[in-house]
């Protein structure tokens, strides 16, 4: 989709956080502003998300090796805390990926589409054989 010269692009979320508004986002400079915005937003979300899930993992590892009495505690029949922690790692990983994917779909993908639109290129080359 081609954009008219005067049109200012504004994503679904009004994405010019921290930038002087209004900026005409219709040329290459505008596209690179959007790209900066994408990078900034990603850092804000990715770093805390990563630290949280990785901290849980490290805590699990420490618990498994240094607190054998605790992780050996039986919860249901023969199933002990160690197995629950192992399964929890799968759940946490899945949850992290899910949260990130959902957020990125809403907060990043519209910006990417706008940036591509400004540059007059289609982001999707989906003719797979």
């Amino acid at each position: 989709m081609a954009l008219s010269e005067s049109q200012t692009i504004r994503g679904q979320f009004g994405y010019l956080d921290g930038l002087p508004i209004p900026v005409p986002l219709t040329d290459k400079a505008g596209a690179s502003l959007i790209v900066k915005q994408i990078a900034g937003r990603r850092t804000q979300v990715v770093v805390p998300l990563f630290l949280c899930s990785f901290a849980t993992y490290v805590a699990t590892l420490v618990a498994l090796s240094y607190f054998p009495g605790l992780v050996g505690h039986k919860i249901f029949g023969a199933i002990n805390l160690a197995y629950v922690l192992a399964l929890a790692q799968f759940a946490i990983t899945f949850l992290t990926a899910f949260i990130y994917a959902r957020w990125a779909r809403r907060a990043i993908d519209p910006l990417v589409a706008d940036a591509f639109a400004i540059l007059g290129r289609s982001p999707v080359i989906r003719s797979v054989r």
Partner: protein
Amino acid sequence: MIASAHGHLFTSLFFFGFIALSLGLTWWSMRRARDATGFFVAGRRLTGWQNGMAISGDYMSAASFLGIAGLVSLFGYDGLLYSFGFIVGWVVIVLLVAEPLRNSGKYTLSDVMAFRLRARPVRAAAAVSSVTIGLFYLLAQLVGAGAIASLLLPIQPDTAIILVGILMVVYVLFGGMVATTYVQIVKAVLVLCATIFLTVLLMSRFNFSVDALLSAAATASGKGDAFLEPGLYFTNKLDLVSLGLGLALGTAGLPHIMMRFYTVPVAKDARTSANWVIGGRRSLSCDDHGSRLRRCSACWPGYHHCGQQGRE
């Protein structure tokens, strides 16, 4: 020899069928890829789903299947660390690596680093580490693949290793990224189906009770409850933490996995493929768990309830 002549005939047919299929895919994709982008990164036209399944296929390798099942059967809980440590590695990949890598528009990790840093030393370092990682990785894979092939076919393990190695080289050399991708997708689907099937078979013997399964495994191991707790394999406490960190952080350094993120059109698809791996692994791992235990029970001499019948 465990299997009868009849069993060999069946497995050989299946084995050669798969080889024929994968060579067919190689031949087919050989005619499509005409330039560097086509050969190395499949023209950057794979969908997130295809790429995700291919990465899953990379993961469900001979070494991880035989290796983790073997560790669990010998040391119980400690073997599981390999299973959930690997998947935590995908948090690193999804959040920090996948999208920036695709956005770089390069072919390999060293291309990306050479773009940012001084090219010559970076390329030398990347080459050395790739060869080192690849060597150790391939050693384990080839030994595993040789062991499997010599069980399925009436050939010696040594011959099997050489044949499997030649096959791998042929796939990659002639088919490039497109062929390896499709071969891995087929493999991922087959392995997933087989695992689910085995898990259902196993669980049906224990009335679908995980509790009963674990109790039986602990009893038959001869180690009792210790079999279900960490500490049999990692006798030094720091070993477990160190290996756990290595698994989680090292996944993002595997060259053959990372280069798959260059095969999709945009960063969004890189994200999708990583999520497909996690989704696939997640559903797999629940089953995995069971089937690994199934295989361990098959290994224990005293435990023929599963063992004998599983071989037929």
